[in-house]
């Protein structure tokens, strides 16, 4: 069940009124049941996995909280981490590692007879295992008391607006909201409705219309000219941003109409000035997770910072998908951060001139687009083909211009809105426009969706992770 479907509209039309009439306890139980239905509609067989991960982390959290001896606490923590990583490792990475090992051994002339299992990836597993694990780690660090309410904890893990593609919620922030009464206000519903609508606009009008262009070019990058490959990657930059941030907006909006506050996951990342700034704005919940549970334990900024950065980003790349091009993408992004730190260091201008600011943003946007070639290709071989085309074939044909104009036309409305948000320093700036302006804008966006949206477009891109 995806957010931009009739099933979800019907689902929400049942869940939301029920939510309004139930007391808090009933609300939580109903939301838990609804979340399991929501997840079960993807594939009910994987509900068991979700419930198992939840149960183990709940029990480990209790055990860590009760236990005073450090060694025993650590043992419970390792159990939780091991179980979650085993789930993730088996379902997401088993085939990848088996295949990679097989290739390596074959290159050495050894036939190990390893075979892949063709394992089907449970949707959202990367998100909910990370979310659930963060809870036991926080309890272990004594940053959070363990909860005694299994069903509330289960709701924290399975909360349907963010279950399958984040944002990854931290228990220290979200459990308190689950355990206390929420207030549904007209203002919250209005703000939430805008976020849902804005997210749908990004997804259906921009991302899904750009998807066919990207799909066509990156299905066979060797068959397109260099400029076309580059246009394809700009298209992908807007597609993935609108797809993923659109999902996050909808998730936040759904939370908001029910009185929950889900933190911002994308903070106008294409207006970032430098790579460090960028990762503070892009997929913030994952960046923070990696910072707190991987980068800092590795030593953070205290020692071997550059190594820590590369390792963290490399593993971050692997988190996205079980393929070497994702690892390469992560390593590339890590290397950019390292180079930036070495070159720029402490010389970052705090109040740059407008020209400098724009130049920095353009450079920053373009290195990220360049990195996305690694992210989007199907394999490292395709990456080589794409780079070869960029280096050797500069044929400028009408299809290149046409696709370039399409990317520009689809991205422009969002760019203008985000520029306005950036300049006013307010993510809800559009929502705060004068009434008449919003009526016109909402109407225009609505008809952009109904007339120009790809209503039966592909799934959200991040579901595959």
């Amino acid at each position, binding site marked *: 069940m995806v957010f931009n479907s009739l099933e979800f509209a019907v689902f929400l039309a049942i869940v939301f009124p029920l939510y309004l009439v139930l007391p808090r306890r009933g609300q939580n139980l109903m939301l838990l049941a609804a979340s399991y239905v929501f997840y079960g509609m993807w594939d009910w067989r994987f509900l068991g996995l979700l419930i198992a991960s939840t149960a183990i982390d709940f029990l480990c959290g209790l055990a860590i909280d009760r236990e005073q001896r450090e060694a025993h606490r650590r043992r419970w923590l390792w159990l939780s981490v091991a179980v979650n990583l085993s789930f993730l490792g088996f379902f997401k990475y088993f085939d990848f590692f088996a295949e990679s090992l097989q290739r390596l051994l074959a290159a050495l002339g050894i036939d190990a007879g390893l075979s892949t299992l063709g394992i089907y990836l449970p949707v959202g597993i990367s998100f909910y295992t990370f979310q659930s694990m963060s809870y036991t780690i926080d309890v272990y660090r004594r940053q959070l008391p363990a909860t005694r309410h299994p069903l509330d904890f289960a709701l924290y893990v399975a909360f349907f607006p963010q279950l399958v593609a984040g944002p990854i919620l931290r228990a220290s922030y979200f459990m308190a909201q689950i355990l206390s009464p929420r207030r549904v206000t007209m203002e919250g519903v209005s703000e939430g409705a805008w976020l849902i609508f804005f997210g749908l606009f990004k997804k259906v009008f921009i991302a899904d219309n750009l998807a066919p262009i990207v799909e066509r070019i990156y299905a066979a990058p060797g068959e397109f000219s260099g400029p076309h490959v580059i246009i394809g990657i700009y298209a992908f930059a807007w597609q993935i941003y609108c797809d993923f941030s659109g999902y996050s907006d909808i998730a936040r909006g759904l939370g908001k109409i029910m009185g929950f506050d889900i933190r911002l996951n994308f903070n106008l990342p294409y207006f970032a000035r430098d790579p460090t700034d960028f990762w503070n704005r892009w997929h913030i919940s994952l960046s923070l997770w990696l910072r707190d549970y991987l980068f800092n334990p590795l030593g953070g900024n205290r020692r071997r910072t550059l190594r820590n950065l590369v390792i963290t980003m490399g593993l971050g790349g692997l988190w996205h998908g079980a393929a070497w091009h994702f690892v390469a993408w992560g390593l590339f992004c890590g290397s950019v951060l390292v180079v930036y730190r070495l070159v720029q260091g402490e010389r970052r201008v705090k109040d740059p001139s407008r020209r400098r600011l724009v130049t920095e943003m353009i450079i920053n946007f373009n290195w990220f687009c360049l990195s996305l070639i690694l992210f989007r290709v199907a394999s490292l071989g395709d990456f080589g083909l794409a780079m070869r085309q960029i280096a050797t074939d500069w044929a400028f044909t009408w299809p290149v211009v046409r696709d370039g104009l399409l990317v520009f036309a689809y991205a422009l409305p969002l760019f203008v809105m985000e520029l306005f948000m950036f300049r006013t320093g307010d993510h809800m700036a559009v929502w*705060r426009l004068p009434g008449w302006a919003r009526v016109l804008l*909402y109407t225009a966006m609505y008809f952009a969706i109904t007339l120009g949206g790809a209503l039966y477009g592909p799934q959200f891109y991040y579901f595959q992770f």
Partner: protein
Amino acid sequence: MARSSTTSSSEARPRAGLAAVALCALLEMVIGSTQLFLNGVETVVDIKRGHLDAGEPDDVVIFGDSRFFSIPAEAVNEALGGGLRVCNFSWPYMGVEADPLMLEGYLDHRPAPKLLIVGFGPEFIGLEEARIRIDTWQVNRERAFTVIPTRTLVRFLVEQRQWHMLYMLLEHRLMPPSVHHRKVILSRLRTWLWDWGRDPLDPADRRYIEGMRTQGWFLMATDEEASEEVAVHLETYLGRVDVHPNAHARAMAERFAQIAGERGIPVLVIEPPTPEAIHRLYEERGVLAERERLLRSWEDRWPTFRVAPPYARHLPNEQFGEMAHTNAAGNEVWIDMVREACAWYVREVGPVGAR
């Protein structure tokens, strides 16, 4: 860093949202209530659907697919003796499954006519499953969802346990008109923006609409469309079509006959003309014989059923504009066939309504 949220107390925000919803709803109503954004065939479908809820009862109703679009109601009236209200209720093809539903829907909304003229060609029992079902192609679904009354369609889908189709019907009903008509709206917008003064409808669509509005019938295919390509097209078509007697199609045809037979509605069955190449194929595969057996069994079962002779007819390929529809010359012959069938009916049974 930009602010992410606020708790501003301005009440104008929900109000502006509601005003936008109202404006969108109003614009949707305008789009939905006008035929301005329908293409040619959609306009025809819309007019047919509108007929179910309007006007005086019909004496004679022509039930058939798009091959009957070119039959003037007046020609039928004259051939049946005159003084009758004849309605050409033919619809664009949307699967054989739709035929009994069209009849059920018609009878749910309007009194039973004194005569039903039914087009029943060999393809009704001799096509592959995909072409028989409403749900296979989007175009069939869209037409069926528009023209078959909801209650009738829901009853059928529940009975057939076509849950997915039921879901698609719900989705169709919930989709705003701008989604249904987006193609035409965008094409009109393009015309207005870049090609002011040009007719946004293509010539065929314009012909259908004007023919429908001014005379109640129109030619689906023109002479210009008839060319050597037709023969090639026919050959290609023959290569693609799997024509064999089909049990599901037969069941649907039986269902149609049963509705009319059990309610005692007089029925005149006419075979729409088929290009000779296709006709030959039906003959070779035994579809024509199967059709004849079925029609004779209906005549035996219900005395109100009559099948106009001959049981199987075809026209030369040259009289077709494309593989299904006659061109102007072919249509003259086709209209004469219908006239003859009607005159034969009057001779055999007597004047319509004189039961």
